[in-house]
């Protein structure tokens, strides 16, 4: 029963990525001070702490953990958030989507943390599909049960004050929460030499699959042969985490979501359902040209779940501007939301009648013959930009029930 703690990524030169920089401090510095206190607190709870060397890159860090994982271990990523609006605050625990067991554990960990540090606000346990890129590698790509814990927002003065003045309380509460979590994992993880993972049902496009899947650490895994049925090329499914049980290979079900497969979990019958209706019928959902799938009312309702002040008339203007030049209004919307943090900055609302056609025209000018969001040019250098737009588009389509 050990815990791996990951606090950030460095590079081979030993440079530590500082993360957000606010008021003379950085996320990396704050987390380092917290971990200094977390070590003794975990020792008091009799939980061994393992930390990958700081100079490792994120991928190397994951591999470091992977190489040392034993049954009963858990891994946690500690992060601090930053946002354009300083009033945004609170702690969140991200878990791998459609894992009810991990969701409950994330929730319990947050409760322990909030109880131990009065004044800390919790934003709840959230599936990693709600993160900016639509997936968190730390939650998805490790064999060990893992959580990504956002302890608060460095940009919020109250959270910052708590982080700086209540480090001991935070470390003690976190250590208690981690011990509780690891105990829970030890109870639920089978320990024989060849673990006997619980079997689950698998349904593919409405048809029962003849072989059972497995529930491994609460994550649904499906037989790898399903990828052929779904027409996923080996290249496309290369990034999907696998688990080998004897000679059989299983694919992580939620990992297939990155290949545009819709994944859902039916708790009662313990069945994972995979379907590809949307992509089979509609093709590339992130195409830049042609009509979008949402209505103005749907766009407004979705935007208001993120930003209650989103103006009601903006979606109509956006649809008109997009239709005038033949571009996909859903992409224009997602790009606008990403670029402005849902209109928090860089978008003077009174200039919407001019800015929206400009944005639509910029998409229309993309030269590729059948362009998708991969061809988008970010307003500022950001290699993840297309993936961020695509992740938000995917969330919009999940909200609309297209996926």
């Amino acid at each position, binding site marked *: 029963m050990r815990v791996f703690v990951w606090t950030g990524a460095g590079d081979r030169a030993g440079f530590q990525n500082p993360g957000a920089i606010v008021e003379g401090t950085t996320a990396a510095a704050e987390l380092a001070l917290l971990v200094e206190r977390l070590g003794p607190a975990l020792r008091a709870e009799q939980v061994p702490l393992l930390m990958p060397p700081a100079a490792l890159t994120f991928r190397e860090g994951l591999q470091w953990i992977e190489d040392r994982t034993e049954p009963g271990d858990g891994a946690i990523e500690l992060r601090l958030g930053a946002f354009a609006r300083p009033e945004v605050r609170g702690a969140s625990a991200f878990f791998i989507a459609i894992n009810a067991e991990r969701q409950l554990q994330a929730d319990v960990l947050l409760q322990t943390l909030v109880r131990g540090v009065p004044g800390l606000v919790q934003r709840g346990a959230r599936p990693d599909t709600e993160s900016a890129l639509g997936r968190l590698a730390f939650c998805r790509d490790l064999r060990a049960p893992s959580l990504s814990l956002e302890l608060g927002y460095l940009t919020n003065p109250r959270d910052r004050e708590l982080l700086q003045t209540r480090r001991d309380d935070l470390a003690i509460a976190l250590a208690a929460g981690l011990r509780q979590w690891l105990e829970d994992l030890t109870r639920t993880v089978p320990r024989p030499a060849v673990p006997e993972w619980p079997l689950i049902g698998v349904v593919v496009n*409405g*048809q029962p699959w003849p072989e059972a899947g497995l529930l491994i650490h609460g994550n649904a895994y499906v037989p790898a042969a399903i990828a052929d049925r779904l*027409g996923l090329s080996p290249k496309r499914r290369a990034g999907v985490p696998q688990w080998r049980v004897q000679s059989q290979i299983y694919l992580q079900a939620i990992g297939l979501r990155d290949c545009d497969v819709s994944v859902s979990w039916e708790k009662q019958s313990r069945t994972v359902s995979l*379907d590809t*209706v*949307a992509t*089979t019928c509609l*093709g590339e959902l992130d195409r830049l040209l*042609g009509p979008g799938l949402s209505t103005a009312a749907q766009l407004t309702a979705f935007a208001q779940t993120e930003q209650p002040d989103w103006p009601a008339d903006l979606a109509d203007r956006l649809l008109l501007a997009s239709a005038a030049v033949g571009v996909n209004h859903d992409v224009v919307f997602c790009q606008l939301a990403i670029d402005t943090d849902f209109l928090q900055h860089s978008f003077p609302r009174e200039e919407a009648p001019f800015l929206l056609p400009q944005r639509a025209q910029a998409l229309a000018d993309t030269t590729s013959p059948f362009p998708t969001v991969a061809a988008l040019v970010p307003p500022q250098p950001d290699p993840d930009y297309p993936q961020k737009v695509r992740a938000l588009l995917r969330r919009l389509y999940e909200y609309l029930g297209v996926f």
Partner: protein
Amino acid sequence: MSTAGFYRRQVLRAGAGFALAAIAGRSWQLADENPGPIPIGYWPSASGLPFFWALQQGEFARLGATVVPVPFRSTQAAAAALVHGRVMGLANTPAAATLALLTLGHPDLFRIVAVLPRRPNMVLDGLVATTQTPTRLGVAPERFPWQVGQRLFPKARWVPLAIADALPALQRGQIDGFYSLDPLATGDFQPATTLGRTLLPGEWVGGMALLRRDFCDRYPTAAQRVVTGFQEGIAAVQREGLRTLTALTGYARSAPDLRLTVWLSRWQGPDPWPAIAPWQASGERLHRLGILPHVPDLYRLLYRG
């Protein structure tokens, strides 16, 4: 009482018992086979005429099946409803949806109840164009029309457009042509501007009526009733031609057209199934062209009661 008489009575009693058990068993099966209302999806297009006729004439109700028609306007919505079991069948799938369903339904999601071989102008698909050498082509923003269209016109510059916007865009000169697997909003292609182009110069399933396989297995009698009702509709369209077009009212819009009824009268199945070898060959060809990811096994998919 003689021993022989005793045994005779025992045998008779056992026989009566078996008979009663058989009757009870059958009635239990019938009582158990109560699917309630049976939702069947349809496209609001003329190709659903046999279904609409059977509904209008009360054929399903007469046979003891409570069929509830559910309209769909997009391939995706209809396919999702079928895959997730919100409808038990579809009455008329156009060509693009047929390709999607043969992909999604592989290997065993549904049974084909009837097929509509191809369009009256003898092509599965079509191109409406304002010039003989179109370069800017519109296409529905769906996977199969674009995939097939790309094979036919590899050098075209494609403009995804809703089908409803195709003719206005042509008239405004935004595109030179529109390639479609399904009829345009006018209900038919205009012959003066149609260039027949097809990947499949033989017989092919241009549309189909189908039922979910698990519904057929779970409720064989109810499935048979739905199929018989559909058959009655097909027979009426073949027998009465133009007169049946009145059944489109409330379901689809179409002008009374002799050519349309000639086409619609070609609905076939399931008893007897015509030779399906050419369709199977077309399915295999679509697979070889990379349009269908799997070879559809039409022999297996046909409804056989």
